[in-house]
């Protein structure tokens, strides 16, 4: 196991450097093609050249290689990696550190993601197991139908409808009523309430996790059905084990292996989805920061935050990979 972790850690370095370089190269290329974002910020009423140059210097946009379309600007990338390593992910157009803004808002996003993950894992796996055990029965058809429909709902569609139908039509009367408990109303809140840092994120969390819930349920179902057909389940039955041991011990762990892999990919999806969810529910998280930056055309913030989120994604994928090895001995003794 130790050797596997070490190997995985060493493999991680080129991937993260490669991904950051890709991000750098594509953004450089875009700037080279469409012109730098400082000018775009001001639009037609351009300020004096001196101010532009000062701003360009502040955002690292004064490098001459940015004028040469196709130049990968390796020097600039090396500088950037050095800055990233010291926690410097640039400043916004008003001069605030992106890292600072990120850290300020990250706890909210982290809570939202945890709620979404917990929801999708618990409900998704349960639904998948039920459907897999009762293949082609009513519950299976129900799960299959619901999940296909859920997958068809983009997060913003689901979020907008949830906000309208649940947050407003059900949640609001509950919060205004005398009889409903406070927590119930908060759970169905239309926005974030700092007094209820977890409860008020439940509805957005469910919205965020809905797509992946469907994917996890389907994956669990398929892999459970496949494992139930496997030879070692037949062996377990020949050993005289009961249904609980056969499903709970012998098949579940094997069936969860692909689900774990999916969760790794899913974290990237959740981070992207949090932009939409936080925008819709007006939650002061990292996603909203990007949401607002898009509207303000604040490119350095977008690039900075996406860079940090990418690092977060890659690191959580690493953790998932190690977890995967813990579940599957064939991987760790490779």
């Amino acid at each position, binding site marked *: 196991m130790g050797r596997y972790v070490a190997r995985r850690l060493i493999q991680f370095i080129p991937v993260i450097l490669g*991904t950051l370089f890709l991000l750098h190269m594509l953004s450089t290329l875009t700037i080279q093609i469409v012109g730098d974002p400082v000018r775009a910020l001001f639009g037609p009423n351009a300020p004096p050249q001196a101010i532009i140059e000062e701003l360009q210097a502040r955002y690292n946009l004064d490098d001459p290689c940015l004028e040469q379309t196709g130049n990968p600007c390796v020097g600039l990338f090396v500088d950037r990696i050095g800055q990233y390593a010291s926690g410097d992910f640039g400043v916004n157009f008003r001069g605030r550190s992106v890292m600072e803004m990120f850290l300020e808002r990250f706890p909210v996003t982290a809570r939202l993601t945890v709620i979404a993950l917990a929801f999708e894992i618990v409900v998704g796996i349960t639904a998948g197991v039920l459907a897999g055990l009762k293949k082609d029965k009513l519950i299976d058809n129900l799960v299959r139908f619901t999940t296909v429909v859920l997958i068809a709902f*983009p997060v913003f569609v689901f979020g907008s409808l949830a906000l309208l139908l649940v947050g407003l039509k059900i949640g609001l009367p509950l919060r205004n009523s005398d009889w409903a408990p406070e927590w119930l109303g908060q759970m169905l809140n239309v926005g974030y309430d700092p007094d209820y840092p977890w409860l008020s994120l439940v509805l957005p969390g469910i919205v965020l996790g809905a797509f992946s819930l469907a994917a996890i349920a389907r994956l669990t179902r398929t892999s459970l059905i496949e494992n139930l057909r496997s030879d070692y389940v037949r062996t377990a039955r020949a050993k005289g084990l009961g249904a609980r041991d056969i499903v709970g011990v012998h098949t579940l762990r094997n069936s969860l292996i692909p689900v774990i892999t999916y969760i790794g990919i899913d974290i990237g999806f959740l981070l992207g*989805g949090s*932009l939409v969810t936080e925008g*819709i529910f007006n939650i002061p998280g990292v996603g909203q920061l990007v949401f607002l930056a898009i509207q303000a055309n604040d490119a350095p913030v977008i690039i900075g935050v996406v860079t940090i989120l990418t690092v977060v994604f890659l690191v959580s*994928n690493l953790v998932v990979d190690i977890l995967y090895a813990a579940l599957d001995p064939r991987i760790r003794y490779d």
Partner: protein
Amino acid sequence: MTETMSAKSAGASEIADEGVNRSLWGDVRYELARKPLFWVSLMLVLVILTMAFFPQLWASESPNARGACDLANARGKPTWDHPFGYTTAGCDMWSSLVWGTGKSVILAILVTAGTTILGVLLGTAAGYYGGGTDTIISRITDIFFGLPFILGALVFLALFPERNVYTLTLVFVVFGWTSLTRVMRGSVIATKQKDFIDAARALGASDLFIIRKHVIANSIAPVIVLATIALGTYISAEATLTFLGVGYQRPAASWGLLVADGQTLALAGFWHLLVYPCAFIVTTVLAFILLGDVLRDALDPRNR
């Protein structure tokens, strides 16, 4: 039925399967034809495609036509004459949605075509040749995979001052080719291990001949399934990015923009501004996902 063939000198009794002479694709067609879900999703997809390419068949008047919209009707609620109501710009909601179909669907088709071509080429090269070719392609795939789709697309679209179907397609293809490449690579590796590839090599067939005649035909099935489903998810992704403000720009009538418009106003009671565009998006995505699902079931050899 497969085991009941006759052979002259082997002398097996001739058993009645004459006329049953289906190829594997023939089997797939037969499987599909028996499934009502296939017909439902296929019909939906056909309706959507005609809306995308011939919107005038479904709504005679384009909302872009002169005088088609009247601000006086803005946010007008559904009536008998206009059961879908009016948009915030005062256009008929139904024709806006129908004429907006093309924006989403054509983009999704272009992106799917682009990613499929790239995925098949790169995946085949990596899977068939292996070794250094595979290492390079796989590592590049890993690196692109390290950038989540929405986040990656967002950065570049935010930098583009002008976003149209071409720039969107480009960005989508750049961030979307990896999954199809991975699937194709895996599928090609599985096919390559089949003995008939060795048999063809033993005949002296060239790599290109083998790839053309054997490898692609036998590896493409999972790619077709995934591409069908991906088509749906690209529609969803376009709408999401447009909703976030980095997709299509006004005054284009795209579904994502209509939802963005409707989202705040729905809270104020104009529910039709939100629900109808949402219904169009969800139905379209659902149609492609269902079709992909049915195809997967039919193509999966384990189900035979």
